[in-house]
């Protein structure tokens, strides 16, 4: 059974009576434990797709099942809970709380979860440790480099041990070195901890870290194929 099932998904925005078809009948499945890149030029509908997959937005028509359930199977509170416990989000612009330190940022999803408070500290420290930022725990985002900020965001996405991590252009604001570092971490999460990862990018170079690439064009899946030669740190060192 697939973790994510998408069938003929459409999303139409109406702005001043002009219809924009952001998604126009996309269909695909993603299994548990996959590392999939959604690739496409800007305006191809990949962000819209990610929002729908993350239950942040609703489709106009078609079907999206997450763990065999649709948006309408949940109450609003339950949707929040699914986002909180089953999904992790990583954004291009990090979206950290600028006034709070690393630790407080990472702990944020736990605050909205049903995890008992006594476990928060341990989980947060584990997550911070897994992105090698223990020494920065008390720093605020302003004191961190771009790569470090994105690592905080990853720790935050991880802290609730979600089934799937959505990463929306996670390297978009980073230099290539930091970008590579981030991709390595995502790869590790996928390889070693079995997190399903859905990556959005417009760079082939970044997409090739994934094991499968879905190309989106004009709101539809244009191609769907395995990556034969996955990129990794070794390429960079060459």
């Amino acid at each position: 059974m697939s973790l994510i099932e998408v069938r003929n998904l459409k999303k139409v925005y109406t702005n001043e009576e002009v219809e924009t078809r952001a998604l126009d009948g996309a269909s695909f499945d993603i299994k548990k434990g996959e590392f999939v890149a959604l690739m496409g030029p800007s305006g191809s509908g990949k962000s819209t797709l990610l929002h729908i997959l993350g239950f942040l937005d609703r489709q106009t028509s078609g079907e999206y099942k997450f763990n065999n359930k649709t948006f309408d199977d949940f109450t609003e509170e339950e949707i929040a809970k699914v986002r909180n416990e089953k999904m992790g989000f990583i954004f291009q612009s990090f979206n950290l709380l600028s006034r709070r330190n690393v630790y407080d940022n990472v702990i944020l999803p736990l605050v909205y979860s049903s995890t008992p408070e006594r476990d928060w500290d341990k989980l947060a420290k584990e997550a911070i440790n897994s992105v090698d930022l223990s020494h920065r725990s008390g720093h605020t985002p302003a004191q961190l480099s771009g790569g470090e900020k994105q690592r905080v965001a990853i720790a935050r996405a991880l802290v609730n041990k979600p089934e799937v991590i959505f990463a929306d252009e996670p390297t978009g604001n980073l230099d290539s070195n930091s970008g590579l570092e981030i991709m390595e971490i995502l790869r590790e999460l996928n390889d070693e901890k079995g997190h399903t990862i859905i990556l959005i990018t417009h760079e082939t170079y970044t997409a090739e870290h994934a094991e499968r690439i879905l190309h989106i064009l004009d709101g539809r899946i244009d191609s769907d194929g395995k990556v034969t030669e996955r990129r990794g740190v070794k390429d960079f060192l060459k």
Partner: protein
Amino acid sequence: MHIKYVFKTAVASLKYNKSRSILTILGIVIGVTAIILVVSLGKGAEGLILDQIQSYGSGIVEVAPGRKPEGLTDIMNISLDSLKERDLKALRNPNNVRGVDVVMPVVMRTMVISYEGDIFRPTVIGATPDFDKIFSIYPDRGMIFSESDVAGRRSVVVIGSEIEEEFFSRTEALGKKISIKGRPFRVIGVLKESGQMTFFNPDKMIVVPYTTAQKYLLGIDHFHAIEIKAESEKMVPMIAHDITLTLRELHGIDNPDKDDFYVSTQDEAMDMVGSITGILTALLVSMAAISLVVGGVGIMNIMLVSVTERTREIGLRKALGATKKNIQKQFLLESVILTGTGGIVGILVGLGLSVLIFIILGQVLSMGWKFAFSIPAALIGIGVSMLVGLVFGIYPAKKAAEKSPIEALRYE
């Protein structure tokens, strides 16, 4: 969602905008300060007046002509000459009224008096030699006129200290003759200086035998009041009752509504002062409360700004699993913390000012001002200011909660 964390978050964000937060709560601070101050001043003034009423003489019952007026225009319809010599006689009879120490008639009017070309306008009081017991004022020098002065309608006068200063700054007052309505009165006593009382100033009055005042100064045969001093305070209600029965009998009145006199006791006067200051305080407090509403509007304004500024943060929190309720709670708590803090600061400032006023009026000017701080008023102050936070915080908090996460995340 843990309230402790919400609290921490709210405090952190308020601290971040420290000067803005302080300016925002200023309205609340001022409002609560005003309330605390008004209540404290009201209580202080009330205490001051009550003390004076008490020092004016405890156990005093006053009978005044006419009935209790039922409104301003009603005063005109009241006959004011119903108390005469026969009433005095009846009230002095122990078979009619028991437990009485002194029964004294009073007539009074403000009149021009003069001495060697100097003129002055004091209150001229016509009384009996017992006025010292009733008014609690005593001669400093000389003496009070005697019963025989009253019986003989002699033209003698006891003067207040300020009148002595006015007329006799260089000479001895005793034995001199001052002129009241063209009639010479011999000064036989000077009263001790006592300062302004609530309702009259003994320093600015002169006292003559009431018989003399009635006949030569006023040309009347009734009294403006009869003052009765009880043997003990406990007997006041009984005396008031006896007086009422005696005068009704004497005046042939069966229907209490037709009474042509009324009896008042010090308790009543104190109750009245209490209710007047109570009404005044309530009035001023409700005016001060308006500033709390104004402060509330300021809070709402700033919270709306804050919601807009933190659109991205709201979107992020929602993406990470915050429900509408979580967001609403967070913003509501922020505004309640703001106004609650304002309330506490307001109470402290109000308390500080009350202490300052106490020091100035009570200690420096020794006015007998007592320090008063109302704990219920303080609790109401905090309660109301938190309520203001709640009421004016709901709209911004709802607005925050309704933001869609993607719109919010896109917001720059």
